[in-house]
């Protein structure tokens, strides 16, 4: 197991970044995330998660071009690193192993 562990929200954020691929910047991630997970996400919560993930080395980011909209501010695009991908896979593996281990009758209660 990798020593890096990620929380549920971080996982969702990373997956959304992966889904959006070339277009993963703040507002887009937020909207996609809200659409798919059906919950309200503040910029603050999301940006802290992104910052944390970047610090852990699971994401990288770079600025885009200057545009006329957004008050002239550049977008920051995020990308999942190969290490990030590995961690995501590990999380999925763990889940899968757990699911497989559940006896048939466990939910019949």
């Amino acid at each position: 197991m990798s020593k890096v562990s990620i929380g549920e929200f971080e996982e969702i954020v990373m997956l959304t970044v992966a889904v959006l691929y070339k277009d993963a910047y703040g507002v887009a991630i937020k909207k996609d995330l809200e659409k798919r997970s059906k919950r309200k996400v503040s910029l603050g919560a999301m940006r802290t998660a992104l910052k944390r993930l970047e610090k852990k080395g699971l994401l990288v980011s770079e600025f885009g071009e200057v545009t006329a909209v957004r008050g002239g501010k550049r977008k920051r695009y995020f990308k999942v690193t190969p290490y990030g991908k590995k961690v995501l896979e590990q999380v999925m593996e763990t889940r899968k192993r757990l699911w497989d281990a559940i006896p048939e009758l466990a939910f019949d209660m």
Partner: protein
Amino acid sequence: MGQQKHIAPPHSLIRFFRWFCDPELVEDLEGDMTELFEERSRANVARAKTLLVWEILMLFRPGIIRNFEGNKNLNNYGMIKNYFKSAWRSLMKYKTFSAINIFSLTIGMAACMVIFLFVKDERSFDAFHKKRDKIYRLCEVQSFPGTNTQNVALSMPGMGPTMTNEFPEIESFVRFWNWGDQLLELGDKKITIENVAGADSTFFEMFDYPLVIGDPAEVIDEPLDAVVSEEVAIKLFNKKDVIGETFVIDGDQCIIRGVMENVPENSHLQFNILLNIKSATLDNPDFDSQFGGNFLNTYFTLNEGADLEKMAERYPDYLSRNTGRDNINEMYKLYLQPLVDVHLASTDVEHDYNNYRKFNGTYIDVFILVGIFILIIASLNFMNLTTARASNRAKEVGVRKTIGALKGQLFNQFIFESIMLSCMALIFAIVLTFIALPFLNILIERQLSLLAIFSEPTLIVIILAITITLGLLAGIYPSIYLSSFKPVIVLKGFKSYEKKSMFRSSLIIIQFSLALGMIIATLVVIQQLTYMKNKDIGFTTDHILLLDMNEQTREKYDELKQALLSESNILGVTGSGQRLGNNFHQWGFKVMHDTGVAQLAPSNVFVDHDYLDVYGIKLLQGRSFSKEFATDDGLAFIINESFAKDLGFDDPIGQKVGHSWYPNDSLGTVIGVTEDFNFNSLHYKVNKLSIVVHTDWGFSEMSIKLNGENIAQAVKDVERIYDQFVTDYPIDYEFLDKHFQELYKSDEQMGAVITIIAALSIFIGCMGLFGLASISIQRRIKEVGIRKVMGASVNNLVTLLSKNFTLMILVSFVLATPVTYLFISRWLENFAFRVQVDPIMFFAGGFIALVIALVTISFHVIKAANSNPVNSLKYE
């Protein structure tokens, strides 16, 4: 769809965001926000703004907020953080010292907090009346011939109405007449209710006792109208809305017109049922112009700008016109006592029956003084220890200065540290007070609560301000001292910096002077209290049960007495009109001289024949009352020694005397003279007293002397016999010694507080001494080593090391003695019967302080004296 103009997000919000946001995140986040805002504002601008505010608030979180430390921005945050860090490190490094330092301040603060709560509670008395500053109580100075002059809270029924008529300064009056316990009849049910009182109909307009139901202006307008407390309502009728219900007192049917909240603890008037005052005087239409007897309290509201002195000039004229007695002004002087003084400034007022939990207000000042003392002691301690510990921080100061710290900055650092410590002490003090309060409440019989502080924001601010000021003041000297170190000297080695610590010694001396003063005061207070407890007051108070009399017991007095006396555990039974332990009522008294009949007014009590025997009151001359002489019932008088002296006869026995209403030709005789026994509290001199038997008057109390070895059984016997004779009234009794304890409660509580505070202050002082001793002995450890090598014995060394401290205690003793002497003699003047201020107490106090101090330092002294010189000398 036309091109819409971009609406930019509000600049102020964005500026706020830019201020707190991490610079690395600011660009893309601001972009994201702007994009969202632009999109949302197309739909609804107001909503977009709200959402923006929310977004920004959600961004205000760790991770987004930039680092405010000094290395990135030019401000002091980083440095202050470092101050905090180094303060914490030095706290942790010297744990004992820090604990002593903080804990002594904690104790001081906690003591002050408790005193504050106590004072606040006492001062809250009667403060809930909105008109409190206008309300006055009518009092009298009575100087009857043949008795001691006394201030009395009682007045005559006619005074309220007539004075209100005659003095334009008086707006309104209320008379309050306490009828004590009353038996209420509700159909078949009979219930005794305590504290039933009568008052004029304006009572609820003058005083703000909140009514739950009823209009304050008219609840007791008519005779037999009643207001009951909620508690009584439930007790009588099992419900709160009892308007229109009736009950019977003394054959009169009273109707309930109002329900009031239970009278609060902090009210000097206490009553459970209040009736219109005329309910008791239905067959006396002249009540409002009745003069003569003083038996009720009168309260006035005065208008703005009323001049009490100018009013006082007109009292004599008023009195002589209304009472129709020429010599009235020789006997009576009226004065008005402000309501706010009634609770705390009535110590000199006698016959003060309606003054619940009356407290000696001068003790409040004593408490405040003592509170300030302990705070001073604690702060001096704090100063002293911090300064003494300076050498530990010297290197730090040197390094900081070398790096470039300014003197001012270092000063700030140490002040900051000191404030931090005092704030910590405050937190501990609050916790300590919280823990200690329940126990203290039992001791001083109060219901103090920290809520009294925390429910008032201003008080919290004041306490914080005091704490910070304390930290500031206590920190100034150590901070100046520490920040003045010269780096070169300090870094080379501290030793050359060592000066004689006059300043620190004088701090110790001040501390110990205060503590010593309190110890001595405590000793004298305890001595006085013990004296009062043990003084032979001339009669027995032990194992005397006082049985409250009622109609039935009065009727069957003789049978009840015989039945009680037949029990082996009951040693004596007698009756009396008043209880021992306060001044007896003064009545007119006639003495036949050769020159004519003189009118006097000594204290009087009417009793049963065997009163003197049951109470063990000793006769100096003559005989006691006896049933064998029929004239002993009403015509025989026993007077006390003071009165006998006052009368001036060579032989008082056989002299013709009598009540003022006896005709001159049928006076009684003096049959005996008793010793001066203290029927009043020991605060007062023994007044002139005349004792007489009137078996037909109806005693108010039966005194039953029980066998001290078998109290429980004796009480059971009394209860059983009582129940045989009395069916209507439940038994109600008290013990006389308990009643006497009540007399000195104010004094006892003061004694308890002073003792605790004295103990705490000597404790704090010793903690300081302990710390200081360890430092100063540590400094001399090489000296001790050398002396030991040269052949000094352990004893020599102990003496040497203790010498300084002993000297300090001696100086404190010299300083503390005169001030304490003055203070304590003033206190003793409160008591007519008091102990002499004994020099032994002073030496005992000094000795105690010295022993405690020496024991405290002995730990360090003995350790140093016994240490192996090799250890202290091998490094140089």
